[in-house]
């Protein structure tokens, strides 16, 4: 009886440990592959950047050409995170308007992000542009993908 009890106890512990380990392993791998899949299925481009010098605005047109919807979580101009004032588009371009862009963008749709640029003084990390300045614009998604666009200011 004692041997049976010992065997059963050890077995229960072993099964519990193995089940937990295997579960964690398979769950982790599932999460990893799902995330990698979704990241792979994301595909978006900056199709146009337009400068409105009079209004000191930069318009960035982002199109989702991937297989799944995306969330635009950050836009950087020359390494500085810029919060768009608006995001408009034809179709699904849902903009939260908070400190983060967090803009949902449906497959095939385009969002027009309007970035305000300081008119005179530097504010605080970026200054009014000078004609000919190079702008390195990066748009990042929630799944970690980025697209970059280099433009010369008017």
């Amino acid at each position, binding site marked *: 009886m004692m041997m049976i009890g010992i065997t059963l106890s050890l077995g229960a512990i072993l099964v519990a440990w*193995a089940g937990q380990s295997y579960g964690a392993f398979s769950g982790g791998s599932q999460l990893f592959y799902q995330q990698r899949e979704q990241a792979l299925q994301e*595909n978006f481009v900056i199709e146009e950047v337009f400068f409105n010098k009079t209004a000191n605005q930069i318009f960035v047109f982002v*199109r989702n050409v991937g*297989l799944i919807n995306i969330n635009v979580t950050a836009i950087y101009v020359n390494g500085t995170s810029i919060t768009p004032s608006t995001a408009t588009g034809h179709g699904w371009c849902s903009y939260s308007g908070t400190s983060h862009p967090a803009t949902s963008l449906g497959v095939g749709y385009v969002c027009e992000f309007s970035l305000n640029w300081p008119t005179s003084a530097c504010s605080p990390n970026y200054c009014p542009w000078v004609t000919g300045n190079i702008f390195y614009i990066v748009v990042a998604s929630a799944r970690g993908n980025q697209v970059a666009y280099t433009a010369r200011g008017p």
Partner: protein
Amino acid sequence: MSGRRFIFRVWRRRAVSTLIGGMIVLSLLLTALGTMVFVTQQYDQYEQTVNRMAQYHNQQGSEDLVAISPGLAVVNSTISGWGSGCDGSGVNKYNCYDATISNLGTVGVQITRIYVNSTGIAGSGCSSPNPAPCILNPTSTISPYAFNQANELLNPGEANHTVLMALPIGVGLPHPTTGSTSGSTGGFPANSIVIVTSRGNLFSFQWPFQVSVFGQSQSAFSTGNMKVAYTGTFDSKNEPGPIATGSGGSNSGTGSGYCHTESSAPYPAGPGYAEKLTGITGYGDSGVLWFLNPWITGGNSQAIMNSAETGATTLYIYVLVINTGTTSYNPTAGTIDLTWYGSNHIDGPLIGVYYNGNFATSPSIAPGSFYYAIFEIKQSSVGIFTIGYPPPQDGQNSVMFWGAASITNALGSSAEGNTFFSGTILVSGLWIRYETQSGGCT
């Protein structure tokens, strides 16, 4: 006996423990196997996605669109299935352009959007205060800032596919700016057209096309907009046909089969207008020529000129030429040679240059500016420019003329070419597009 019984009992209990242990080990192995199968399935699914995206990226990289000369062509007719307005009729009038594009790629392409950016002074084309850039989305019915949805798909290898674009009547491409504002030195009106595909690729071209000139290290030529003027039965104001009521001609449609409805405008006028050039001494009606977008009459004749009066008919053609070089030059002479389908060729000399609102024989053309090189073609009979078989169908866009214009500068350097003879250099291929419209004036 007691010892044997004890051993048996122990052996029996050990067998049960072994059995239980074996089952536990077996269950662990099965669980591990299940986990491996599950992970393998996940990996397999991931690999499928990787392959699918690799295929997608292959297709993305296989797209290749190029604009074909003349890049954009003005359209002045009603487009079947997309609505009216391009012909200048109705409440909603548009400046319409056909973009000629070839798909050199190996996959079909869907155009999702077109951006047009214009350079030059304020108000020229798609520059502020007009929307800048102009954003054209596909629509099923004509509207401003749109392109025809029926034209959005290009088959693999499809050549000379036209995409019809519509802009408001107030936004014309290009909008010549030379001399139109005080202190402006002008510049050639350049428009950057960016075509966006559904796979996220961008293809762009400049319009008017800039043509490179072999051997021209300092000055260069480029062709762009082109219009024609006629004198025959009437002066060029009324020949061909009436210009839009109240804005130009008074011919009321008699004596000509032409049906122009373009509004008239003085120099410099956009491509959608009948452009009035004055001061062309010795030509036209007291030095006035009205230049229109070229097109032909319908019916059986398919004639470009169909005057009721027997007598001399003169065709004037101006070609917008851009000095894309870095120094000034004087265009002193030149010829134009046109060959049209099913007939012979016609030719004529350069009679002068229209530059900064003035007509001159050899002005100095500043770098970056444009001028109209005006050629004269005289013929001695009516109906001279009849189109040979097969005539274009009603509403069909057709390239009727092939040819070349040559211009010589004061230094003797010549920019010339011929599209038909091998071994020569094409400098300025003239692809004159005509649109037919049967039934006379409407």
